[in-house]
């Protein structure tokens, strides 16, 4: 990484922590707090997802499976054991996601490309169907309500800061992972798996590793979300949830580490603005997604950087001529 990049990154972290850290101080509106909370938690989910897609080139259409497990880990513990089990529930959800991702990894990281995508989709739907119909335990379509974090965590502002701390720490960890030798191998896996093998590295093992990591953070996001919404629901497992996180990443830019985070913020804001004005929001989201894929495949962050590079180049040209 060059010095300029480091400086930029410091600025970005500063902005991230500053904007989201100061929000509860600036605004006492509950809804703004909830929106911000949704944005940071979805942002974590999207960044974790992009470890698979943008960095390793594995498009999973089933990350909702782990997001749901994270949420239901908390939900079920609180429902059956009481609200003191909120945090242990979160740990249990994350652990369950890790174990399941590890086992599933052996099963589905035997195929690649679209085959991988469809298998993840199928397993995600299986989990949704089980949650939906295992009504006596999960509450089925009614979901689980009244998930109030215990003690001081029950305070909305405090809980928000806890979420923010978790999200920042997780994104920081994922960032350093992406810059580590493992991150380098994963990028190579995306670009040229055969060569990775010639270099004596294991493609599948590294793919499984990143699959587990991504899933663990998806589960963490699900667990955090259960405390924001105070309820969990089978929709968390549904394939449209996986679709939404993909959309966020593409919108923000899959080849920029922070792209998905920006994408999550944009999608949440667009959904809120469009959804409160028209019932034809799917049309608008659909058109937006189509425009992004066709015209701006680099995503908002990527296109912005392209634009900036072009300006700099032009300025350089001018300076040279003049």
């Amino acid at each position, binding site marked *: 990484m060059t010095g300029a990049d480091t400086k930029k990154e410091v600025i970005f972290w500063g902005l991230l922590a500053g904007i989201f850290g100061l929000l509860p101080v600036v605004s006492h*509106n*509950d*809804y*703004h707090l*909830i*929106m911000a909370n*949704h944005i940071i938690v979805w942002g974590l989910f999207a960044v974790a997802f992009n470890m698979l897609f943008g960095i390793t080139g594995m498009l999973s259409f089933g990350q909702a499976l782990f997001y749901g497990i994270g949420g239901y880990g908390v939900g079920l513990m609180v429902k059956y054991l009481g609200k003191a089990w909120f945090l242990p529930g979160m740990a249990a959800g994350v652990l369950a996601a890790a174990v399941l991702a590890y086992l599933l990894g052996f099963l589905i990281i035997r195929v690649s490309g679209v085959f991988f995508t469809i298998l993840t989709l199928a397993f995600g739907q299986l989990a949704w*169907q089980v949650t*939906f*119909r295992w*009504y006596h335990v999960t*509450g*089925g*379509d*009614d*979901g689980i*309500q*009244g998930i109030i974090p215990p003690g001081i965590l029950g305070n909305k502002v405090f809980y928000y800061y806890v979420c923010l701390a978790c999200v920042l720490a997780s994104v920081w960890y994922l960032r350093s992972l992406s810059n580590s030798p493992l991150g380098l191998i994963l990028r190579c896996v995306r670009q040229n798996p055969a060569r990775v093998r010639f270099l004596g590295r294991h493609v599948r093992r590294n793919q499984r590793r990143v699959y587990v990591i991504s899933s663990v953070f998806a589960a963490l996001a699900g667990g955090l979300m259960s405390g924001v*919404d*105070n*309820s969990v*629901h*089978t*929709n*968390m497992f549904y394939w449209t949830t996986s679709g939404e996180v993909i959309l966020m990443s593409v919108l923000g830019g899959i080849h920029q580490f922070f792209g998905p985070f920006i994408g999550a913020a944009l999608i949440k804001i*667009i959904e*809120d*603005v*469009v*959804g*409160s*004005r*028209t*019932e034809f*929001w*799917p049309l*608008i989201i659909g*058109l*937006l997604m189509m*425009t992004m894929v*066709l*015209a*701006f495949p680099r995503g908002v962050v990527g*296109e912005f950087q*392209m*634009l900036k590079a072009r300006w700099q180049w032009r300025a350089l040209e001018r300076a040279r001529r003049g």
Partner: protein
Amino acid sequence: MSSRKAWGLLALALALVMALPLGVCAQDKVIKIGAMYPMTGRPGLYGLDSVAAAEMAVAEINAKGGVKGHKLVFINTDSQAKPDLAVQIAKRYISSENVHFIFGEVSSGAGLALTEVSSQYKKIFIGTDHASTQLTSDKLQPYYFRVSNNTFQSMAAGALYLKERQASKPWTTLAYIGPDYAYGHDQWNELKYNLDRFGVKYKVVGEYWPKLAAPDYTAFITAIMKDKPDILVGGLWGGDTVAFIKQALPYGLFQKMLYFSPDGGGNYELMSATGDELPVGLALSGRHHNNWPDTAANKKFVQDFFKKAGRYPSYAAEGAYSGIYAIAQAVEQVGNPADTEALVKAFEGMKIKLPEDPEGFTSYIDPLTHQIVQVQAIGETIANKDFPPATRMLGNWKVYKAEEIMPPVEYLKDHSSEYLKGRLPK
């Protein structure tokens, strides 16, 4: 497309979206109702009908000068029947839009999530159309009121119907087919509970749980035919009832047994979607009927709705219409839409004359469970072309007294929230 041109287009599109009309302008004295109804997908029809009927009620009341100098303002956001989204919208309504009431929702899952928000923020939630009994028993909280029937009431009326039928046309065996989620299971459990309560003897010969929105029922139909029940109880709703009936027709299922669906089976969209194919003699009901009761108020409601929407309403519409009138009546009594505690008192025990009330009966809100108490009528499909495109409607009504079909205290003792427990008679 050059990148710059594309960016311009995108900016334009975004600007257009932002410039869409910004809701209603703030007025000095308003009663603001924030509704959440699904407008898309399968339950979308119910959401659209509910919103149209609610807007109709709002326009009627405002045309007469509003309530105690307040104008009613009704806003709706598509909840997509998703609980998490509904919660988010409700919080926006409460924190940013300063609504006085939250309102609506077809899905019980979303209703259950919303009643939590209502309880946390001490904001009155008027429930329409979602039918899970839990909302007025296990999950009851002080600020929730429901103005349409729950599944318990439908199933209690259903049990009485089956009891009467046993006297005239003896039957012994039952089978059930219902969607494989809470709503499907609740109906079946509550029907069995009520049959036992009314001392009806029966034998269950089969239970079938297709998944919600299953496209194909063939295997279920042949399995049910083999069970040969006297009565097939149906818990399906909407498009699923349509698909089931259409697929069962050539098997002659409806000649071999009585199809009986007392909660969601008799909704108007079934009649309009199946036309001549719908067999006569099915016993069905719903939460409101376009041709019962035969009163001026009901006729006016149905015809006004037709004028506004260009179609006859499904039963969701009348619930939303009633909800708006209940709010108007409560504010009329209290005078201040912000005085939540006084409004709760006004809703408890409120008597309100609604389109679905037959002559000589007025609906009222049970002060104990916050559930509206209404007469329930179960009909049989007969030929009737008054409400096209339907060519069958319900008729040969059997009517059940409102009090008889409410959950008894013994039931509530086993199914009560902390709040309800404190209110139950010792």
